[in-house]
């Protein structure tokens, strides 16, 4: 039991990154920056596009749970409808999804048609991070990620894989973080989607739960086990029934645990139901159950979310979840995230996101609150800039940190 507690505390600190570092403010200077680098944002799915009448991830992404490689349609949309400079660009002709050119293509089409039906994307995020904490601040430049992603889609079948570099201090091997960068494939899976709405997927992927906010440090992701490295090996079945989408995932455990940390391997299942009330409004209900492992007690969460777009340039998503077992020692806590996004002008999205996680009344677990402001400038499909400011407040210990993250997102 003592070993359980020790390991669980280490896991808690690792998962909660900056916020736990606030709690451990005595160690803030040496620990805070590397911790935040591990959990910093990798933009992926964008729920704000409900403002453009896109309620499903699969409009623009290969993955049914969003994020990752853009489909040819997603690239075309990014170019023509989102980029500040793409409004007058010539759109690809219908039927040319396997013959992309220019901004729609991998490396601007430098490989010609050599790839055939294989679609590739190279994603990199050189970033700058500045963290202010009681008594000082720290700056760091780093390459957040470098991933090569590929997909082939034919006749309802999709094969998808990504290979990349996990940043230094991020890889976990047998419960211990490794100082070296390491190879990682966050996702690799095969899927079939029928015209009738039935879908099945097997491999490594992030289970469907709640709203997949693009910032994986959002409380509803990082505190509920849907962070950057929380993909599972599993089977997902889905069914689209009119305006409803049901997704159920069964898994023998987190992929990283199966590969590198077997003591944390344990069965899990997740379910997500989405109802598109209108083209600009949707409600989502989710639940997840994780069986106990050698080191973790069983846990689960249940929650609901509502998103709507009052105008074609504004989206508002709110998700509230009950975390039925805090990772380390039990108890119930609440997690709530609101994200309001406004397209100020074409290609410039401004976001505001208040977030909360209650302590659950468990000693050692703090109530934490966050205000996040973000500006996303999207000049072109292949590159954009994101500036995020986080103000994190530990209500239990009355401490604050501020974090400024600047990212150049290269999507080649």
């Amino acid at each position, binding site marked *: 039991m003592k070993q359980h507690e020790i390991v669980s505390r280490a896991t808690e600190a690792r998962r909660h990154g900056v916020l736990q570092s606030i709690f451990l403010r005595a160690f803030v200077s040496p620990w805070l920056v590397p911790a935040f680098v591990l959990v910093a944002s990798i933009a992926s799915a964008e729920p704000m596009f409900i403002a*453009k*009448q*896109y*309620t*499903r991830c*699969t*409009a623009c992404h290969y993955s049914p749970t969003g994020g990752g490689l853009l*489909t*040819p*349609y997603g690239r*075309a*949309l990014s170019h*023509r*409808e989102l980029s500040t400079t793409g*409004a007058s660009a010539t*759109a*690809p002709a*219908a*039927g*040319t*999804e396997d013959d992309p050119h220019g901004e729609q293509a991998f490396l601007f089409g430098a490989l010609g048609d050599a790839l055939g039906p294989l679609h590739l994307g190279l994603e990199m995020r050189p970033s700058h991070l500045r963290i202010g904490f009681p008594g000082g601040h720290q700056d760091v430049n780093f390459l957040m990620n470098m991933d090569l992603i590929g997909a082939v*889609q034919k006749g309802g079948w999709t094969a998808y894989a990504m290979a990349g570099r996990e940043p230094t201090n991020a890889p976990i091997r047998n419960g211990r973080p490794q100082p070296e960068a390491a190879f990682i494939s966050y996702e690799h899976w095969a899927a079939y989607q029928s*015209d009738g*709405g039935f879908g099945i997927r097997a491999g490594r992927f992030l289970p469907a739960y709640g709203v997949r906010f693009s910032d994986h440090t959002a409380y509803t992701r990082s505190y509920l086990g849907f962070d950057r490295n929380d993909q599972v090996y599993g089977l997902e079945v889905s069914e*689209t029934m009119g*305006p409803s*989408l049901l997704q159920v995932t069964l898994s023998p455990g987190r992929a990283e645990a199966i590969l590198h940390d077997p003591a944390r391997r344990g069965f899990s299942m997740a379910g997500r139901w989405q109802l*598109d009330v*209108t*083209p600009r409004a949707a409600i989502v209900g989710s639940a997840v159950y994780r069986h106990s492992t050698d080191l973790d007690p069983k846990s689960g969460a249940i929650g609901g979310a509502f998103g709507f777009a009052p105008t*074609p340039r504004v989206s508002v998503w709110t998700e509230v979840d009950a975390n039925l077992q805090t990772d380390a020692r039990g108890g119930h806590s609440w997690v709530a995230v609101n994200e309001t996004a406004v397209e100020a002008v074409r290609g410039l999205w401004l976001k505001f996101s208040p977030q909360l996680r209650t302590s659950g009344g468990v000693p050692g677990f703090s109530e934490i609150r966050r205000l996040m402001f973000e500006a996303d400038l999207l000049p072109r499909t292949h590159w954009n800039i994101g500036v995020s400011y986080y103000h994190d407040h530990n209500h239990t210990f009355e401490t604050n940190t501020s974090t400024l993250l600047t990212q150049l997102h290269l999507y080649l």
Partner: protein
Amino acid sequence: MGVGISLVLVTGAVLSATAAPWRVTRGDVSVKCPMTIGGTFDAKTSALSGSLSPSAAHAPALDGSITVDLRTLDTGIGLRNEHLKENYLEVDKGEGYDKAVLSDIDLKGVHADSSEGKGSFTGLLTLHGVKKTVSGPIEVRKTGEGVRVKASFPVHLPEYNIAEPRYLGVGVKDTVQVDVTFITQ
């Protein structure tokens, strides 16, 4: 096109009582387009026009028509608008392709001499150079502005020789739903 249908129904309820030409003062048409990858989007317009009058031939029927300007349909996305109008509705293809017209409207279950009620309607929808019968529910209600009419009906795109809407792996299913709301005085 949905607007046209709705308009006809409303007109019938009102005109029977007055036997005078009836005009749409304002209205909205929303075409709900279910996508092949899940989800839907709306194509909307407020460009409705037309007038109706009771038919001398058979009481419930309305003479006249309601017209929707298809060039004004807006889906909220420029590229989608472009494809909708140029590739599928083909508004520049020839005379009449830029409009949807509802005519020969008949009402069932809605009293012609009442400004309130629920029932159904049938009418002829001319779209993309093809004329087909459409039908659906209708609701008529008196408001401070006049008489509000709500109607809806499905449109099966292949029946109108509209090409299968598909673009880079994403498309619209064969049947779209038209919702029309308009005010008459």
